[in-house]
């Protein structure tokens, strides 16, 4: 059924249709609307589940761990600082092989504190052993949750569904909300791989020493490789049953004869596609590669999708200080560096809008791109600060100083 609703609402309805038995969450912007909606559904009994208001994200993930180990379908949602605060439990859930599904409403990490969107939070957990699926639209965000439970439970591995904070969570768009019967048909009852049961007791969470730890990790690695197939198959099955493509590993756009391909994750892909259409109209041979699955990283699919492109521009919504592009590293590892040129463009940090205007300007001159570029960087500002820093060590954090230079504290348009 088509609806014009806020992304958070769409996701909440999708999650509800997956019949989670235990939902727990701690409020953090911009994840709040999702769990608020779910808590209301539990309260008015349209959703039969236990909803726990916990005292922290660390507790949220811990409750999910306990619930999942006890054989219940468990869900939670978080973002930014919250994801980092629960980090220890995030890794633990993966290590224990518990098929928890978590929405991450992507948001920057402070300091300086920033409530707006980028991918720093999810990227910080890329090696936690969770699957990471990125939504391009609210429709996809909705669809990915339905797929996520099925993938997680088939592999007995937790799945993170990443959707851009505000850009998707707070955006009202048209979405096709499936019927409960469709979801039930697609998502089988949860059959836990291992479960806490007095009738068949086991000890879950043993201490493993050097004699077996490597093997445990190797098996986790193999499971991730297996996940690549499961994700692909699940997306195919979903398309067949719901009549629309959603999720999967990668999604190429106009890459057929493309010499330049822009690779990106999440909601920025739409803006990029519009930009690419304009550039195509001007005769540029350019395409887009949407990376829907970031963990496990679909190296083969990426290589294949890039086809004959000479130049890959990786648009990153996060930065690895001291290194550069995070996704770039994965792509570089997947390709033969000699054969292709790879440029990293850091864009949209902390809610900075990624506009067609800026993208177009940048991509039109793609040939001149240095290895690492910061889109829409206020060079005058940073140069002044750098000069100042060179001149004398100035007390106080650079962000404060620069804001003082800007003379503003609120966000601007664009």
């Amino acid at each position, binding site marked *: 059924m*088509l609806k*014009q609703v*806020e992304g958070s609402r769409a996701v909440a309805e999708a999650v509800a249709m997956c019949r989670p038995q235990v939902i727990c969450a701690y409020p953090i*912007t*911009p994840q709040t609307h999702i769990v608020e909606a779910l808590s209301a559904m539990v309260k008015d009994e349209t959703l039969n589940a236990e909803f726990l208001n916990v005292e922290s994200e660390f507790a949220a993930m811990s409750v999910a761990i306990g619930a999942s180990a006890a054989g219940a379908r468990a869900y939670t949602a978080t973002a930014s600082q919250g994801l980092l605060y629960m980090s220890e439990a995030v890794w633990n859930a993966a290590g224990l092989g518990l098929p928890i599904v978590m929405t991450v409403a992507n948001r920057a990490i402070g300091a300086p504190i920033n*409530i*707006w*969107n980028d991918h720093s939070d999810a990227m910080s957990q890329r090696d936690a052993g969770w699957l990471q699926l990125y939504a391009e*639209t609210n429709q996809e965000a909705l669809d990915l949750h339905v797929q996520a439970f099925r993938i997680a439970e088939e592999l007995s591995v937790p799945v993170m569904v990443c959707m*851009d*904070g*505000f*850009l*998707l969570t*707070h*955006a*009202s*768009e*048209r979405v096709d909300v499936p019927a409960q019967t469709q979801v039930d048909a697609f998502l089988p009852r949860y059959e836990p791989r291992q479960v806490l049961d007095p009738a068949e007791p086991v000890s879950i969470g043993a201490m493993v020493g050097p004699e077996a730890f490597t093997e445990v990790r190797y098996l986790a690695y193999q499971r991730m490789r297996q996940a690549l197939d499961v994700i692909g198959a699940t997306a195919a099955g979903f398309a067949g049953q719901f009549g629309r493509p959603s999720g999967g590993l990668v999604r190429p756009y106009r890459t057929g004869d493309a010499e330049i391909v822009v690779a990106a994750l999440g*909601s*920025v*892909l*739409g*803006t990029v*596609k*519009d930009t690419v259409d304009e550039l195509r109209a001007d005769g540029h041979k350019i395409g887009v590669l949407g990376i829907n699955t970031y963990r496990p990283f679909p190296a083969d699919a990426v290589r294949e999708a890039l086809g004959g492109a000479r130049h890959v521009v990786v648009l990153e919504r996060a930065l690895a200080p001291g290194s550069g592009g995070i996704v770039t590293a994965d792509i570089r590892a997947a390709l033969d560096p000699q054969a292709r040129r790879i440029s990293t463009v850091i864009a949209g940090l902390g*809610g900075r*809008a*990624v*506009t*067609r*205007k800026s993208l177009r300007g940048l991509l039109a001159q793609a040939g001149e791109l240095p290895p690492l570029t910061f889109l829409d960087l206020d060079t005058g500002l940073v140069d002044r600060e750098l000069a100042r820093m060179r001149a004398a060590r100035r007390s106080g954090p650079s962000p404060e100083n620069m804001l003082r230079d800007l003379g503003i504290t*609120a*966000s*601007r*348009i*664009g």
Partner: protein
Amino acid sequence: MFQVRFHGRGGQGVVTAAELLASAAFSEGRHAQAFPSFGSERMGAPVMSFCRIDDQPIRTHEPVTEPDALIIQDPTLLHQAELFAGLGRDGYMLVNSARGFGELGLGEFVRDFRRDRLLVVPASSLALTHLGRPLPGAALLGGFAALTWAVSLDSVLAAINDKFSGPVADGNAEAARAAFGFVRDEREALVREALSDA
């Protein structure tokens, strides 16, 4: 694609207005996208929201920098420089006010635009009359329908009834209707005026 930017103050229902417009467009089978200028602003602070309407799926997620229309929910915001940023010569603007642009001190400004596309409507007072509270959102949308025909009044009313219920729905609908009539009449007057000038 038709892009609208709403300006108002926190608590005036700026985001709701954008969403109502989107769902009005949706009810006409068109694609729409509404979203706030994501900030941590509190009650009373200047805020914005955006709405895009198209017959194609809308892919971009950038803010509206070159609006086709502006809806100003609070005239006290009018003297902020960036308020009109990106509004083209053929752009539309609807201001919630009982006074004319002259009185609002915008006489100079509006001269650069098409007169019949820049209008004021006493949305707050209409809301006060029909809804009992000075929430101008619905009324402005009624007026916006009459000004731009981007969506029909029926769609606006449908969106209102979809979002609200009972007296609130009725009040908002009435305010929208009233604003629609007000703007339609004023616009026709301006058109006639323009024709007679020519």
